[in-house]
Each structure stands twice: as C-alpha cells, then as structure tokens.
C-alpha cells in the first residue's frame, strides 16, 4: 500500500468512524431521515461561506454550518407544528428546498468557487494526498484533511464519552429524563449541532448523500448484531474502518468513486449481517417449534 493510499484510507476511516458514532445515536433516536435532511440542508451554508470567505475550512464556517443544521431542525418543527404539515412532508419540503438553493448558488458562481456539483455529490477524497499542509518554512506535515478528520474524530469521541449518560437517557426515555430534571431539549439541539458539524466536515470528502450512508449503515449493521450499547459502538467503529478499507479497494478495482464504493461496501456488510441474523432467527425457531412449550423464558 502506497503512502497516498494510506492517507486516503486513514482519512476515510476517521470520517467513517465519526459519522458512525454520531449515526448510532441518530438511528436509536429514530432520526435517520432528519440526519439525511441536515446533510442536504447544510449545502447553502457551505456555499455561502465559500462565496464570502473564499476558503474551505475555518472555524467560523464550521460553526455557521452547524447553526444552519440546527436551524433546519427548527424549520422542520415549525412547518410541522405551526403550519400543520405532516412530519415526513415537512422534512422533504425543507431539505429539498435548501439543497436546491445550495446547488443554484454553486452553479451560479461555479467560476469563482472551487466547489462543483460532483464534489457535492460524492466528495473529493481521492484528492486527499494532494492537499498538503505546509508550514511557512516549507516543512511538509502531510495531508491537511487527515488532520481535520482526526480533529473531528477527537471531538466526537469526547462528546460521546463525556455525554454518554445524557445521550443514552435522553434517547431511551426522554420523558423520564425530563422528570429527573435533565433538559432533553438541550441534548437534542446539542446533538443536532454535532450531526451538523460532522456533516460539514465529512461533506468535502464524501459528499452530501454518502454522509448518510456512513451515518446509517455501519451502526445499523452493529445494531443488528448486538443488544448492548457499548458493544454496538465498538462494532460501529470496526465496521466504519472496514467500510473505509473495503471501499478504497473496491474503488481501485472498479476505477470508480471512492465515496460511492464506501457506501457500497457498507451496504454489503449490512446485507451480510442481515442475512446472518435471519439465518440465526430461523435456526432458532425450528427447534422451538419441535418442543413447543420450552420453559426457558419464564418470569
């Protein structure tokens, strides 16, 4: 494996793990489609920040985009509660509208901006090794996106580690958490902010829609295989790295988009895990039928 490949796989791995850890809570909160909506809706924020600042990554842009993400959830809530539009339609109307604005902005200023429709759809992770971080004295520190994705991973691991109890209880039983005096609204918006930040950082590498694949597929695969949250998170990390590695080699083999191949690989792992659990379920059911009243599940 060349150094370039290693850079790509590592960056992809960091991003996949970040997305997976956030996604694990996203699917447990039954908000996978809200995550999908946010990943589309941050586009106009990113495009505007590009047009104004002309640069890719700075902290203001990150925070601005995170704010757009949180605003998206607020807008969806408003349409749902105030305009009494059903929830799935509120999500659909909001994210397509914001995404359309984003694409229009990009198309309109396509000459000024180093961002195009293809980048929006499937990112530019293949160019990671070209984007080097050089100090003023010329020292080469390696690819810049590698650092950015490592920073994102650090942020998310910290959040999940420190906020584990709050995230868990506000996900499992929000009413009970409120009764204990824990602010579920604060956790909701904090978490949505995290989803937005993750989306914005990952966007550049894998594009708007494939972010969702990384957020949903690895944790869904892990969730199929275990009933313990901590184990689920560890399995998510495992599948996320496997997604990055497998996706890279699939892309090289087929000469196609790395992000697309990562989503394909993640889907393959899921299909395998799903088939495995189905097989297990059917083999568990057969002997049960034979000994109809097995007393193993008594109270």
């Amino acid at each position, binding site marked *: 494996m060349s150094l370039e490949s290693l850079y790509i796989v590592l960056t992809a791995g960091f991003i996949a793990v970040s997305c997976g850890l956030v996604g694990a809570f996203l699917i447990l909160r039954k908000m996978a489609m809200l995550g999908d909506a946010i990943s589309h809706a941050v586009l106009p924020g990113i495009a505007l920040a590009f047009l104004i600042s002309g640069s890719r990554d700075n902290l203001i842009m990150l925070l601005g985009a995170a704010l757009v993400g949180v605003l998206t959830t607020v807008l969806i809530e408003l349409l749902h509660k105030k305009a009494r539009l059903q929830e799935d339609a509120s999500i659909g*109307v909001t994210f397509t509208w914001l995404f359309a604005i984003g694409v229009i902005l990009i198309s309109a200023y396509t000459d000024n901006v180093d961002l195009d429709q293809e980048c929006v759809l499937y990112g530019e992770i293949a160019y990671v090794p070209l984007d080097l971080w050089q100090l003023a004295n010329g020292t080469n520190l390696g690819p810049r996106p590698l650092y950015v994705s490592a920073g994102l991973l650090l942020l998310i691991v910290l959040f999940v580690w420190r906020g584990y109890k709050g995230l868990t209880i506000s996900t499992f039983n929000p009413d009970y958490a409120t009764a204990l005096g824990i602010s579920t609204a604060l956790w909701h918006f904090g978490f949505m902010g995290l989803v937005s930040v993750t989306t914005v950082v990952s966007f550049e590498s894998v594009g708007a829609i494939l972010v969702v694949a990384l957020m949903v597929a690895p944790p869904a695969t892990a969730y199929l295989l275990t009933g313990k949250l901590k184990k689920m998170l560890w399995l998510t990390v495992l599948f996320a790295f496997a997604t990055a590695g497998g996706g890279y080699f699939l892309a090289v083999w087929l000469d196609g988009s790395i992000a697309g191949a990562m989503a394909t690989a993640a889907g393959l792992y899921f299909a395998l895990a799903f088939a495995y659990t189905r097989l297990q379920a059917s083999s568990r059911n057969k002997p049960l039928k034979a000994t109809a009243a097995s007393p193993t599940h008594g109270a």
Partner: protein
Amino acid sequence: MDKFFAFFSFTDPNVRLVTFGTMFLGLSTAAVGSFAFLRKRSLIGDAIAHAILPGIALSFLFFQSKNPFLLMGGALVSGWLAMVSIEYISNKSKLKPDTAIGLVLSVFFGVGILLLTHIQHTGIGNQAGLDQFLFGKAAAIVKQDLYAYGIIAFLLLAVILLLFKEFKLLSFNPDFAQASGLPVQSLRFVLSTITVLAIALGIQSVGVVLMAALIITPSAAARAWTERLSVMMLLAGGIGAFSGLVGSYISFTAPNMPTGPWIVMCLSCIALASLFFSPRRGVLAKLLQQRKNRIKIVSENLLKALYHLQEQSDFQNRHFTEGDILEQRSFSQGDFHTALKKLKKEFWIMPITEKNRFQLSEKGVEEARRVVRLHRIWEMYLTERMRLKADHIHPNAETIEHIITPEIEEQLLEELGYPKKDPHESPIPYKA
C-alpha cells in the same frame, strides 16, 4: 427580455417540445405523488428516487444503450428492489422504518455513483448525458425520448383515472378497503408500480437528488387549499406543470444551470406561500384569528368594566372617564386603545361632549349584559356541574365568557334552570 419572448412565443419547435414535455412530466409525477403524500410514504419516494440511479447505470452497462425504455426498465427494477428492501428490513429486524429508508437510500445511491463513475472513467459507449439524471437537464432530453416518456406518463394518468376510487380508499382507509372486499394486495402492487414509474419519469426533469420535492411539495402546497382529493391532485398536478415550465425557461436562458434545482425552488416557494397564506390552515389565517380573539376579549372586558361601574352606582351614574375605567380594571395601553376603538366602531359607547367621558349606548348595555350574563352563568355551571368551589371559578369564567355562543348559552340556561344569582350572589342580568 428577448430570450423571454423567444421562449414564450414557442416558435422554436424544440423549445415547444421540451417545455410541454417537462410540464407533462411534472404534472403526472405530482399527481401520482399525492397518493404517496397522503399515505405518509413520501420519504420512501425519496429513497426510491435515489435507488433508481444504479438501475439506470446497470441498464446502460448491460445494453450499452440509452434507449429510454431500457433505462426505464432498469429504473423500475432497482426502484422496486429498494421499496421491497425497505419493507423487508423494517418488518424483519429491530431497525425502524426511518433507518431502513436512510440505509436503502444512501447505499443504493452509493452503488449508483460507483457505477456511474466507473462508466465515466472507463468511457464505455456513448455515456454522455447519464449524469443528467443527477440534477436533471430538461433541455438535453431528445425528441424520441420525450415521446417515450410522454406515453408512459399518459398511461400512468389513465391508470389513476381508472382506479381513482380504489386508490382513494386505499390511501385514506386501508382497513375499510380490506373489509369491503377490495383486492388490496393487487391494488397496492399497482399503486407501487405506478409510483416507481412516476418517480423514474420525474427524475428526467428534476434529477434523482431532488426528486422528493416533486413528490411531496406540490401535494403539500395543494393540501393547504382543499380537503378534497380530486381537487388536491389537480392542483398538485398544476403546480408541478407550472414549475416544470419555470424550470425549462431557466434552463433555456441559462444553459449552465441544472433544471432540477430551479423547478424545486419554484415548487418550494409555492408551497411555503400556500402554507402561510391559505385561508383554512395557513399561518396567517391563524394569526389573524388570534388577533380577532384578542380584540374580542379586550373589548368585551372593557364593556364589562363599564357595566360593573354602572352596577356599583346602582345604575345611577352612567358617564365614566378613562381613569374610572382603568381604576375598575387594569388594561395595557395597547389593549385599552384597541378596545375603545372597537367599542366606538360598534356604537356600543357614545363619547360625551365633556372631555374623555363615555356612556354605554342602549346596544352597548345589551352587549355588556350579555357578557356579564355569560360570565355568571358559566360560574354557575362550574360550581353546579363541575363541582368547583366558588372561590376557584373566576379565572376560568374570565375566558370562557368570551367564547360561549348563543346556542351554548341557551343550552346552559336550560340545564341550569335559568338561575337568578351567580355563586357569589350577584344577580344574573337577563335580556331586557
């Protein structure tokens, strides 16, 4: 402006064709989409749209051709597969529907992107134009394709017209449809198939990524204006067609703009405006209603204050100053002026020539007696029927007095047997 006329004179046969084609596609997709909307399956529609991409790519890889029927065939197969997968995953595992939808959507799309980039990089056959399925590019559709799509769209609309009643029942009351002996399974199959086909058609104009908008947004807009399904579908179709027109116009004037996002922009603006301005369910109507309530409450409170002032003087004194009123009951400055304006407008009070004095008119006295009467009989109701203690009833009566209609008043009086006094021993003023 030249371009505007060049476009809307429709002298260019190509413009004519593409525009009417796009409008027709928008119309049929939006009409079919309203069933998905009503069945709360619009996000599944979004997933199907994304899932069509690998079908198109595979069909191209396999047949090395861009024949519209072949591409539609591939689209139909992968769209169907996506829909079945979503249902299978959410029924047969602990994963919830939203996870299943997100998973299928993004993974299928990822496979599509992988195949599409593979085709582009290896340069198989005449692949140019395949990427137009991503964001749509109406102007790029060639004549023969458009005829093919038109035929399919026409068939879809025909099926909907034919099975309208059945689909309607299936959408609003599936249990009843089952019970009344309809072949629910087959109907669902037909509806799903035409939905997948409609989505496959729609992506010609808006592209897979924004397809959800063409399913959901016209219906969301139309729903704000009507309760009737047939009207809603016609409206949704009209909105879809109009947006198609706008999209192809922009595509015509600015060739490097993708059509899809502009169609979606147009759709979204119509939907947001509908949700805001619709007289039945709109936000604006609601705000106006709340304002009306507010005016009613404060003006009736002012009437009551005047009545109480009269009552306290045993109906001797009839002229009061603003100060007297504000002493009787506190009002915010704004409320007080709103209420005064309303009372003057209705001629419930007459200004007296001596400055800042008011007198209730005959009509005003009648109105004030009505409000006080409602307050006091409601207090009776609260103590007699709802077993509330006399010292607990006032706050509730303060609001409910403003909402009791003559019909409810009649019912209350009858139930309570026309009481003379309220629980605080104040007399209940009946109509003179």
